[in-house]
């Protein structure tokens, strides 16, 4: 694909696409990398959302395709296959840290305390197969206040949305034994019932890397926001986390995976590009250097992975071990 | 002495910025009389005419000195109400300028803003009367709702006269009302002026010496902003006292 990459089909600058959640971390690494390595050009990072990024990443190898994909969840088996099909055979999978998918409300809000079931019943399109008629949180759970359901959350292209579905909705849904059963009998129907989000205005799709959600919450104290933990940490003056199943989103609860919204974050690197793009390997090394608990990424809100996982991934970066895709779901 | 005159101008000078366009002109205008202003182009006829109903207020750089009285009241006095003044001293322009409204609305416009007719029947009456006086009624009575701009030039000018009459003015100023018209339309307007004279004081600016001679009783000859001669029309045309007037009238220049 000589045309897209500039002169002669080569490129001397790392290109990164993908998750908006990982974007601030990756761009911070890119910036530091650029500062420390005057010999290489600073990588260009575009935030496209995990899903769209995967699509771009897996579209092929060559200068016209990105080298790295930021992902706020693991690659799906289907995506891996897509990659293989398009000749993106060798992929390095690196877990860079953990992010909490936090439910937040304004500091002036009602101090909600929810369960995964509550959340599911409030924002699913068809909770347990029946159309969602809930108008207020009280309709969902009589213990909750009678305020209108209004949730600002990520749009369907984003990995954050996938995480919302997997980490919260799916779990809430499966609290119902029938659904657990349905999962075995009719997986598609189960997915539809458990993860489809209502589209009648109670759930408001808000832009992806959207700082404005925080401002909207300050303005709408009764509304709830769904976004990355780093946004919460940065804006503690205005918003606070909502406890789910009694657990508040904090660094510790997320790092320990006790908060249901905790999820690992990854970058995926094209093996074929490692030798072709100047600086790609060095960039990975810089990443590994940055994700330690005291590293500069922690300051931006990245929650460091447990030591063992960090060590394992540091080794992957060093040896550039390719993923097999065997354990993907 | 002044009591008999409808309007009296005394030592009127008009400036456009620093430029003096009218220099100390004194003139009287009487009821039931047609006064003609003649003179070469640019001598200030229009300028002076417009001082008589303060239409020159619309030109920001224009400034008037001297006094002009209407029925003994100084129209440039601070208490003077321009709106009422203009209702009493109407004006007809060189190019017919009917509003882009219906014929009826053109005529009804003035009475309506001044509140001269209460209710539709009365307004109908006013409109009819004005159009009749302007000699236009028979030509337009069946199409009062047509646009005023759809009439011929001469009809438009008569419509403008009807419009002016409708607010029941006392003086009518006409600035070359026929210069945009053909001879037949001109003849009609002249006839009309003749008829109107009985009820109003009429002042008419004209380039056409013959017209001045035909329609007016008194004539004022302007030159370079000054009033050279003012008197009975018959006298001015047959026996001018000033050399300049004579030269002009005989077509020596202009």
């Amino acid at each position, binding site marked *: 694909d000589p*045309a*897209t*990459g*500039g002169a002669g089909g080569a490129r001397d*600058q790392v290109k990164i696409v993908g998750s908006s959640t990982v*974007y*601030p971390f990756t*761009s*911070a690494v890119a*910036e530091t990398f*650029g*500062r*420390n390595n*005057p010999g290489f*050009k*600073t990588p*260009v*990072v*575009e*935030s496209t959302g995990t899903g769209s990024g995967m699509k771009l990443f897996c579209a092929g190898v060559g200068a*016209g395709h990105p080298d790295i994909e930021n992902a706020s969840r693991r690659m799906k088996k289907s995506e891996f296959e897509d990659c293989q099909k398009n000749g993106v055979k060798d992929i390095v999978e690196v877990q860079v840290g953990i992010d909490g998918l936090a439910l937040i409300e304004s500091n002036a809000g009602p101090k909600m305390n929810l369960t995964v079931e509550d959340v599911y019943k409030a924002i699913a399109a068809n909770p347990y197969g029946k159309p969602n008629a809930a108008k207020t949180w009280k309709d969902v759970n009589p213990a909750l206040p009678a305020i209108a359901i209004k949730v600002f959350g990520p749009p369907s292209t984003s990995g954050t949305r996938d995480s919302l579905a997997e980490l919260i909705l799916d779990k809430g849904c499966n609290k119902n034994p029938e659904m657990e059963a349905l999962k075995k009998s009719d997986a598609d129907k189960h997915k539809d019932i458990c993860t489809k989000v209502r589209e009648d205005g109670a759930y408001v799709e808000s*832009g992806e890397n*959207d*700082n*404005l959600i925080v401002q909207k919450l300050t303005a709408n104290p009764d509304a709830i926001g769904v976004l990355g933990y780093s*946004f919460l940490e*940065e*804006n*503690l*003056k205005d918003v606070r986390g909502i406890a789910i199943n009694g657990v508040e989103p904090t660094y510790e609860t997320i790092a320990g995976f006790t908060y249901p919204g905790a999820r690992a974050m990854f970058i995926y690197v094209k093996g074929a590009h490692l030798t072709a793009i100047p600086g790609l390997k060095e960039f990975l090394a810089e990443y590994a250097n940055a994700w330690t608990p005291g590293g*500069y990424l922690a*300051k*931006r809100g990245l929650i460091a992975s447990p030591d063992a996982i960090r060590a394992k991934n540091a080794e992957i970066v060093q040896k550039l071990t390719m993923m097999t895709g065997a354990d993907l779901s | 002495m002044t009591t008999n*005159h409808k309007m*009296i101008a005394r030592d009127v000078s008009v400036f456009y910025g620093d430029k003096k366009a009218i220099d100390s002109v*004194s*003139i*009287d205008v*009487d*009821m*039931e*009389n047609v006064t003609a202003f003649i003179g070469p182009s640019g001598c200030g006829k229009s300028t002076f005419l417009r001082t008589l109903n303060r239409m020159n207020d619309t030109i920001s750089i224009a400034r008037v000195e001297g006094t002009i009285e209407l029925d003994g009241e100084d129209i440039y006095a601070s208490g003077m*109400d321009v*709106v*009422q003044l203009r*209702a*009493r001293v109407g004006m007809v322009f060189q190019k017919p300028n009917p509003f882009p409204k219906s014929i009826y609305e053109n005529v009804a416009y003035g009475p309506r*803003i*001044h*509140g001269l007719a209460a209710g539709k029947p009365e307004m109908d009456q006013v409109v009819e009367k004005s159009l009749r006086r302007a000699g236009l009624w028979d030509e337009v009575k069946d199409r009062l709702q047509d646009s005023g701009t759809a009439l011929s030039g001469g009809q438009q000018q008569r419509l403008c006269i009807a419009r002016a009459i409708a607010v*029941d003015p*006392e003086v009518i100023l006409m600035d070359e009302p026929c210069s945009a018209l053909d001879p037949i339309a001109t003849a009609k307007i002249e006839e009309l002026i003749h008829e109107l*004279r*009985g009820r109003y004081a009429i002042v008419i600016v004209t380039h056409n010496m013959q017209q001045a001679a035909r329609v007016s*009783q*008194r004539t004022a000859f302007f030159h370079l902003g000054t*009033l050279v001669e*003012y*008197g*009975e029309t018959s006298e001015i045309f047959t026996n001018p006292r000033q050399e300049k007037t004579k030269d002009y009238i005989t077509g020596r220049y202009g």
Partner: protein
Amino acid sequence: MTELAAMTPVPTAPKRIPTDWKSDLMQRRIRKRYASERRFRFIGLAAVSLSVAFLAFLLITMIGNGARGFTQTDIRLPVNFAQTSLMLDPTALTGPNAEAALAAANIQGATEEAAVAAFGPDGADYISDGAWLSVRAAIRKDPAILGKTVDIAVPASTHIDIAAKNGADPEIRAAYQKLEATGRLSTGFNLNFLTGSNSNDPTLVGIWGAFKGSLLTMIVTLLLAFPIGVLAALYLEEYAPRNRWTDLIEVSINNLAAVPSIIFGLLGLAVFLNVMHLPRSAALVGGLTLALMTMPVIVIAGRNAIKSVPPSIRDAALGIGASPVQVVFHHVLPLALPGILTGTIIGMARALGETAPLLMIGMRAFIPAPPAGITDPATVLPVQIYLWADEVSRGFVEKTSAAIIVLLVFLLSMNGLAIYLRNKFEQRW
């Protein structure tokens, strides 16, 4: 002249009864009319004032928010190089491998250690993430400081910076006051904001990268749109025969001037990126896209300017044997030029403030270095503003407004120049 004598006796006609303008009714009426006149006039004045007030409000808000973006809080950080973990040999910094040596040393860690040493366990949070860059610069400047204890001015962290500008939570204010007490804080002009590029850290961001991107984009736009626009205007106004083809050209130009800008973005995406495979995010593509958008504006302004050159000038030149091309290039074009330039400046100002079409062609990536050429990834000022408006860190709020001030100053001076040109050269023949 008043001695003028008897008047012609008046003919028949019934005596008229003049309207009594002095009657109470009339006087009341007239008072009402004048009141409504005053009301109307007041509404007009209010409309103008409201519009102007809105502009003033917008500008004041932006300046109020943005002025702080031009200042930054520095901390004089005492660094005792001997005590830090920094392993750097001053002699290595003079040789050819100085850069590599600097890169290999963990200056960042050392800087944080210094901060902790100076301000306690939270010390590292008081200085900007980019503080070590100042330290590195200091070392580069004078390697001899290694091994000594020196004070190096480093940018404070966003929290401290905001606290210094009066707007933070109590906790951070406390930290700020503690620092303040040490006398090591100073707030000054943020030169880096004018010379730096995009960054993740609001204390380190600058607009030069986006500004240069804007500059490169505008150069491409101007180089394409101006000549093409002027030539097309000349052709249409001076030479084009009146036929269906020229009508078509004319109609399409008028339409292009009115097409929403985002549609040009769609065009750029479909044609320049997906068909011609030009590089994504590049000033070249941005410039091309904006040129297509600006060209019709220039053509229309140009045609009006050319039209206002009186035909007698053309006749005069033709009459002494100038060829049509000479007539245009010797006489018409020079006379129309001020008008054309005015139109061009206005068109360029619009292009400079344009955001939407550039989002479509990828000029919205994180690009921490100024573009070196028109094919490098770049962003432009308005897009930078858009991106910063979305940033997580609260430090970006004032930076966004500051960037807006820069953009507005630039744009308003362009518009001012256009208005000046228009007033100066407005001539009637």
